[in-house]
């Protein structure tokens, strides 16, 4: 128990560090922060790409991104595509769409997007 909770604490520290870095990075833009985004309202949110998921052969292909702006995470799904040029780990992206909740997660389906570099 001791070792595990200690590990968790150290983990949290890494994640906190990263969150601070991201907050700093997105301060210059005037977007809604992910944690404040309202459901079913058109919103512009932005974040750094943390994870990507491809669904190659099962049904319709799709690209799933997880973005993080330091305040929280959102999942962005682009259905019908196998890959999107310029969308890669570590890149920043702004998405303009309608977030909704799946369980605890904020999900945005097929939004308009702008690469921020």
């Amino acid at each position, binding site marked *: 128990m001791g070792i595990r909770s200690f*590990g968790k604490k150290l983990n949290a520290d*890494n994640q906190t560090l990263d969150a601070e870095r991201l907050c700093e990075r997105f301060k210059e833009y005037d977007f809604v922060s992910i944690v404040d985004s309202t459901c079913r309202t058109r919103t512009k949110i932005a974040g750094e790409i943390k*994870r990507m*998921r*491809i669904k*190659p*052969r099962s049904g319709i292909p799709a690209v799933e991104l997880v973005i993080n702006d330091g305040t929280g995470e959102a999942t962005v799904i682009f259905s019908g595509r196998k890959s999107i040029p310029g969308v890669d*780990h*570590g890149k920043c992206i702004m998405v303009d769409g309608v977030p909704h909740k799946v369980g*605890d997660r904020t999900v945005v389906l097929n939004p308009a997007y702008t690469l921020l570099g």
Partner: protein
Amino acid sequence: MDEMVISPSALKRFFIGKPIASSEDQHHRLSKKVALPVFASDAISSTAYATEEILIVFMSLAAIGMTAYANLVPISILVIILLAIVVSSYRQTIYAYPKGGGSYVVSRENLGRSPSLVAGASMLVDYILTVAVSVSAGVAAIVSAFQNLVPYRVELCIGFIALITLANLRGLKESGALFAPPTYLYILSLASLIIVGLYKVYFQDLGPIDHTDPYAQELLATQKSLTLFFFLKAFSSGAVALTGIEAVADGVPAFEKPEPKNASKTLVWMAVILGTSFLGLSVLAQKIQPIKDHEGNIKITALAQMAEQVYGGRNIFFYITQFATFGILILAANTAYADFPRLSSIIAKDNFLPRQLMNRGDRLVFSNGIIFLGIAASVLVFAFGGIVNALIPLYAVGVFTGFTLSQFGMLVRHRKLKEPGWLVRAFFSGVGAATTSFVAGIVVVVKFTDGAWIPAVVIPTMMLIFLSINRHYLRVRSFLQIEEGYVAPRRTHTVVVLVGSVNKGVLQAVKYAESLRPDKLLAISVVGSNEEKAKLESNWEKYKMTAELETISDDFRDLTDSILNRINELDDENSDDIITVVIPEFVTAIRSQWLHNQSALAIKARLLYRKNTVVTSVPIVIE
């Protein structure tokens, strides 16, 4: 695979021997002639140091000088009376518990849980001390004969303990062939020493030893008067002669039929031999006047001093006596190796000690108990420098606590059953219980600062450990108990395959993961760069993988943490899910294994005890 490398199992085979099938477990019965050496070696061996221990208290601690010799015989007679009481009580135990009635069993049946645990703890402590004391005394006999071995006393002790441990792991049976010669040789050499010694003293005017050593003369010159405190202390030292007499009651089932009768006869014989030789040695010591101190400045044992004086120097008879003493003491240590593992397995069966103590090894012995005993005894010998006298105060507490509880248990049993003539027997048990508890009390009080506090602390601590182990087992049992109408829940099954790069092993692992028919299948890879990610994704496409592939950016170059965080998140998505983590692992020859799987190992170690998580390795054997 590689014939040149000696595998750990081959090494074990070399030392321990080839495994014996469970069905070959044999229950051989012992005749009285064979049973006597097997069970009596422990008890009779204590004559090798009991007289000396009394002498040390008088000489070195009480500093009463020459008066010590006059008090030796009265103390011995008291010890022999105690012996008679305990033996008469144990005879009843033998008839009452023909299946073996050690203190633990008798108090469990009659007195309840807590007393039985005290008895169990006492006896376990006692067995550890039997090994430590007997080996130390045996080595003392050897170094008395070979003075230049004195500096290596501790090393010799630990070496012999290691040898006995190994022999027992090999499944050394309590066979008569092994036990009989040294035990009978010792009895004969003692008899010869006493008879020849007394003959020479009374008919050839053999005088006492002329102690030229200034230190010895100093001890002899002391002239304090004997106080009750030191008298009791000397008595409690002499009472260690009684250790080991419970062995017969423990081992009744090993006797030929009718077991109780044979066992009780053997017990009486043993007591007679023990009593006579102890008294004989004390009388002889009174005349020959050997000397010994509590700090170990005098290196030669009292027995060796007497043998040297009686036989007129260090001749063949002297060496025979020393080797016989050494032999029986090593055997005495060996009996503890039979008793300790057996008792600990019984206690473990009652859920008071770890289950592992019930495991029988390759040679059908309780290996874990044997190893534990060996280590514990070695630690004791090391801590006390292999000096018998330093260990003795620790010894008697456990023994007499065990005696007391066993006899008190018998008393309760007599009262409960009320068999014909129970009053007389109950009287004997009562007297026994009262005397032995009195002795146990004396030992704790007069030797508290000498080391008797150690068992006084250790035994209750062990009891607490027993109880907490028991509580744990009971908790686990009640947790795992199937209640009325319980049905195992159907859970959402998420399978995660950890992927480094796309290779044959990963393809196999994904195929295996699919065969688990999960509700959700996900391949996860932590990538260091976008090039790596692109390559992985194109390969995923190329090999027509059906599973979803998730790539995680490796922000802090910490593979294990990234994966664990991701698994935590996946786990949070559903409340009722179970996650299987499939890890493809390369298996190569042992010499190159360390080149692989370090990260897999780290991840496995972190996930091993996670709730609702199954970790599966898919081995990819590289031939």
